[in-house]
């Protein structure tokens, strides 16, 4: 089976708000029709996970209803069908990321597993005592702890690029940290806690200039913008299906062919082998070598459907529409004197983190939910070092997707004003 490269529509004329037909889009998401505590659900926790369009839900149930079988194992009809669908979804991922070869797309459980895979295979084979791994202050715990563990195992050192008060990556400081000992740079494309978009292209170039490999945590980038791994020239790129309108339980590790091909296996067992005898096992080709055991077949196919869905809307339109939402949200919340924004980078995705004077984020979150049906995240966003950097225990985070509306943002601002009144 073949797929053609996705066709992106030209950015539309008109305002950002007109970039997509949001009401038509909302009709594709059954969960958005429900009420919470008697109020229509306003879902603004898209950074944690996104909602699923009917097309993705159908892909899952169609698979189980009509094609369920194990992949790469049977000569029977169903197994062939399942394998085809599973591999076709991989082609969609390849095109979605702009990768050159389908072998570069490894299915994993999510971003977390992708990063752990790289740390424990590439990392253990290539990073040794005295070497350095560079991350940034704004990383998600899943892009901190695997490197910490690796550094402990190997006697290497973890170096951390600081950020400024706006939540921006300090490029000058980064350059100072790089050196002959730097073996790997692992940085997030978009901060889940603040929405900051990092200058990953420059970060990658600079790392390559000193011979280091680069892993980009793309968990929060792929839902918001077109990503092209070849243009970026990253060595690894990781994302989670569930954060890009697909199912939970599947994610992707992209790796450059030559880099992946030289890596030792991760988990071992079925599917990742070519031949096994008790004396010696030879490993399978890419990407199967890194996919031991029965994978999440249905979720992978569901991810393919999610990619079709966002591609049909067009990531350029999505980015444009969300830019409007971000601007609108920032304006609306900034008009409330008690609100302080955490993360005011010049380049941001539609994620708004804030604190309310004198009110703990959990109290804000509870009131937003119980009184207004607004789902936001209140907490440390799996980025405790970042919270420490801003000297707050937690923040309230409203993260928007292309199905959010300006009316919902008005409701959010109204709700925050109400919080201020209750605690006033």
């Amino acid at each position, binding site marked *: 089976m073949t797929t053609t490269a996705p066709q992106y529509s030209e950015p539309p004329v008109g305002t950002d708000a007109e970039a997509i037909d949001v009401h038509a889009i909302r009709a594709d998401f059954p969960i958005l029709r429900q009420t919470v505590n008697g109020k229509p659900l306003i879902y603004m926790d898209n950074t944690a996970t996104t909602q699923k369009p009917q097309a993705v839900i159908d892909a899952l149930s169609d698979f189980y209803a009509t094609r369920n079988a194990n992949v790469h194992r049977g000569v029977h009809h169903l197994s062939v069908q399942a394998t085809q669908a599973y591999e076709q979804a991989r082609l969609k991922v390849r095109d979605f990321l702009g990768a050159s070869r389908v072998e570069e797309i490894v299915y994993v459980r999510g971003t977390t597993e992708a990063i752990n895979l790289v740390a424990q295979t590439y990392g253990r084979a290539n990073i040794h005592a005295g070497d350095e791994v560079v991350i940034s202050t704004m990383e998600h715990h899943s892009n901190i702890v695997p490197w910490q563990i690796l550094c402990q195992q190997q006697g290497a050192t973890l170096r951390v690029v600081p950020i400024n008060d706006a939540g921006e990556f300090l490029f000058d400081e980064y350059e100072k940290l790089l050196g002959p000992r730097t073996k790997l740079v692992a940085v997030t494309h978009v901060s889940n806690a603040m929405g900051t978009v990092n200058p990953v292209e420059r970060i990658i170039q600079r790392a390559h200039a000193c011979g280091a490999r680069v892993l980009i945590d793309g968990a929060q980038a792929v839902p918001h913008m077109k990503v092209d791994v070849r243009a970026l020239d990253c060595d690894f790129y990781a994302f989670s299906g569930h954060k890009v309108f697909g199912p939970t339980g599947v994610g992707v590790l992209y790796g450059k062919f030559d880099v992946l091909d030289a890596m030792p296996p991760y988990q071992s067992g079925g599917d990742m082998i070519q031949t096994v005898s008790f004396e010696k096992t030879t490993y399978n080709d890419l990407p199967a070598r890194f996919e031991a055991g029965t994978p999440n077949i249905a979720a992978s196919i569901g991810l393919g459907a999610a990619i079709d869905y966002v591609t049909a809307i067009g990531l350029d339109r999505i980015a444009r529409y969300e830019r409007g939402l971000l601007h609108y949200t920032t304006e609306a919340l900034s008009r409330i004197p008690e609100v302080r924004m955490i993360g005011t980078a010049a380049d941001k995705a539609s994620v708004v983190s804030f604190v309310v004077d004198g009110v*703990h*984020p*959990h*109290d804000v979150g*509870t009131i937003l939910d*119980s*009184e207004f049906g607004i789902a936001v995240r209140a907490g440390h966003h799996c980025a405790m070092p970042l919270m420490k950097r801003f000297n707050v*225990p937690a923040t309230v985070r409203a993260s928007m997707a292309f199905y959010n509306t300006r009316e919902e943002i008005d409701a959010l601002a109204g709700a925050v004003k109400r919080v201020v009144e*209750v*605690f006033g």
Partner: protein
Amino acid sequence: MSDLDDLYQEIILDHNKSPRNRRKLEQADHTAEGYNPLCGDHVNVFINVENGVVKEVTFEGSGCAISTASASLMTEELKGKTLDEAKVLFKRFHGMITGEDRESSEEAGLGKLEVFSGVCRYPARVKCATLAWHTVRAALDSGGESVTTE
């Protein structure tokens, strides 16, 4: 606003704004530290016990309104109680918050602590309300170690 008023009652808002007994007790004979990793709520409790009676109890820490008010009200309620009474109170309070033991807690007359009865409808907030209590129990049981709500 009925539900919300139920959770954030005036007393809770008041104790959040001006917590009672929020200070360190220099010569405490029981202390413990409590932490709720989910929220980042953090509390230290300090207790002096004399002849089996809680003579003095204070706390320090930062957290949401529910956890701050709960710690504050707890210190008021515990003072003067025997250790056995304190244990019973904790059990009843816990029963009310988790919704596991509604009847007996109502009968027991938890007094001011009943302002937290609304918490049982907010499962995500139960740990906030019980953090200070768990910490006190740890302080009395072991004489000082760290507890978490996990």
